[in-house]
């Protein structure tokens, strides 16, 4: 973890944003009316940088990722806002404004995604080599034989030994870790500028998890791409992220460089998350694991005011339950969405 700590912030700041999301809203129509899965999300990811999107399940992380890829589309889902993807020189693309062929040309070429479930994310009746090659053929004017040859290189790149034999297997013949490597190979097939990884290690064993994380990190260094990494696991965040955005009930509640977040969380929810985490962050010492009381409210019946106030030990009646706080910037690198973050009680809590 310490090796991750050298101050890259200044250097990273100078790089251009690959992805910039502004005012993203995702509304889902249900039988009980429309609910807001993602509210007013704004974040950016720079070249070579990893932004971790953290939160409990149902917080809106995956929906945000799917919305960026324009994969969250059905009659029931409404996405609004701006999703800007910088593709090189020129003006950035607003992904939400693209028509179907244009977004298809982005997916898998400029921005790729790795999913949570390696077991079900590969087509069971196609050989894995062909599934990788398919991603190349979809975007480049090359034939299948050449694409298959590149698929072999990609398999080697993601650390699969005996690539020619493996490329001819079917997904069910591979272990979960192997399949996730194949998924990564598919995502990297056209060397995208942005990789979105949606809980890519959650379904894997701990040892395999570490391998896959190391793989993503080294490939990022090699290819220089931006990574949007979605997870609920702060341990994983510590290993892989440069910056962190914490989501709660559809909103980003805190954003900070990873070191600052672990050292001095500002939002009571982040503080609670860190306290409820065994053996990580600043306190590998003998602190008690203290889970946050209660559970995240259902999106269908969000409380008035700050969505976290019913679980927050510092909630102030008449203020926290009255209005939704804004995401306030703290310096250049941090932001927090809390009515009371300036008050000393909060600052003191993190020290004692």
């Amino acid at each position: 973890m310490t090796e991750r700590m050298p101050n890259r912030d200044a250097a990273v700041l100078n790089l251009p944003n690959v992805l910039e999301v502004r005012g993203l809203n995702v509304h889902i129509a249900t039988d009980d009316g429309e609910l807001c899965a993602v509210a007013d999300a704004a974040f950016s990811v720079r070249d070579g940088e990893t932004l971790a999107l953290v939160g409990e399940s149902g917080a809106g992380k995956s929906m945000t990722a799917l919305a960026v890829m324009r994969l969250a589309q059905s009659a029931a889902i409404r996405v609004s806002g701006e999703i800007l993807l910088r593709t090189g020189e020129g003006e950035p693309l607003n992904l939400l404004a693209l028509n179907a062929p244009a977004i298809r040309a982005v997916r898998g070429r400029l921005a790729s995604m790795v999913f949570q479930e390696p077991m079900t994310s590969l087509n069971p009746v196609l050989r894995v080599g062909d599934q990788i090659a398919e991603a190349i053929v979809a975007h480049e004017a090359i034939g299948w034989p050449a694409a298959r040859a590149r698929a072999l290189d990609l398999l080697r790149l993601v650390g699969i030994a005996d690539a020619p034999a493996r490329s001819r297997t079917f997904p069910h013949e591979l272990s979960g870790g192997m399949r996730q490597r194949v998924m990564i190979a598919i995502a990297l097939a056209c060397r995208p500028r942005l990789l979105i990884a949606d809980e890519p290690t959650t379904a894997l064993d701990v040892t395999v998890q570490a391998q896959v994380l190391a793989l993503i990190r080294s490939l990022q260094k090699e290819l220089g791409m931006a990574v949007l990494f979605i997870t609920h696991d702060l341990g994983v965040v510590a290993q892989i992220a440069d910056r962190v955005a914490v989501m709660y009930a559809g909103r980003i509640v805190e954003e900070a460089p990873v070191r600052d977040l672990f050292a001095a969380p500002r939002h009571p929810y982040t503080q609670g998350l860190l306290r409820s985490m065994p053996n990580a962050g600043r306190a590998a010492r003998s602190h008690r694991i203290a889970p946050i009381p209660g559970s995240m409210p259902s999106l269908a019946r969000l409380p008035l005011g700050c969505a976290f106030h019913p679980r927050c030990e510092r909630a102030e009646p008449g203020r926290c339950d009255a209005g939704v706080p804004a995401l306030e910037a703290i310096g250049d690198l941090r932001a927090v969405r809390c009515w009371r973050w300036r008050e000393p009680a909060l600052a003191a809590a993190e020290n004692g």
Partner: protein
Amino acid sequence: MLRFIAWRLGRAALTVLLVLVGCFVAIRSAGSPVDILYPEDATPEQTALLEKQWGLDRSLPEQFGLYVANLARGDFGVSIIERRPVTHIYAEKLQPTLQLAGLALLIGVCVGIPLGAIAALRRGRAAARAAMALAFTGYAVPHFIIAIVLILIFSYHLNWLPSTGAASAWHYVLPAVTLALPLIAAIARYMRSTMLDVMNQDYVRTARAKGVAEPRVVTLHVMRNALLPLITVLGLEVAGLINGSLIVETVFSWPGLGKVLTGSVSRRDFPVLQFGVIAYAIAVVSINCLVDVLYAVADPRVRVES
């Protein structure tokens, strides 16, 4: 794989054996097989010979053995009405039946699969609703009523198509369509539900995330996975197709097996009936067997497990 095929063949053989037992029991309970299986005016010598051949003096299991042995030798008896070996009768009538059933199957597959696929892809729209309403109708209306309605409209009212016999290609239209309609309904219903199922699978999302063009997503990733279970369903529908062909052939006076078989029941022409049942059973069982093996070949998951 070979073990799977062997196991499947064994099961098929067992099914046929059970059908034979059923036939045997049915014929024994109807009376003496010599009276039943051969014309009444057979000479006493012939009768005595047959009785010996059938071993009527021995125990039931032994008799069953002889019964099977006779069948295996190709001796299925002589039609009581037509006075000639039943195998000859069936040989003549086999072709029209196969043609009709094959044509119906072809129509069923060629119309049912696209219909179900469209209903799934355009879910919620008027065309999809209409398609499924049609499929629902095909499910609830029996063959003989479809036949009568079609005859009334296209033969008697519009005078476009002939309704009896198999003299020309036009004669195939009404019976084949009648036979195919319930099949289309069943296939479309099944296709729609598996398509909807597959469309929600993670790997379809993966394909989209790769930037694969939508037509390719639909054909290669969705349809290909949806068609696999359909193979099995088709095998099961063959039984229904045969049920239907018995009725449809009778209604349209089709010169095939259906009329022979249903006619043999009312005339109590046991040899004819017995052969028909056995032949149909073997046909259905072998088709199902073939279908299972095909499925195993087509689905890599099964291929490896066995």
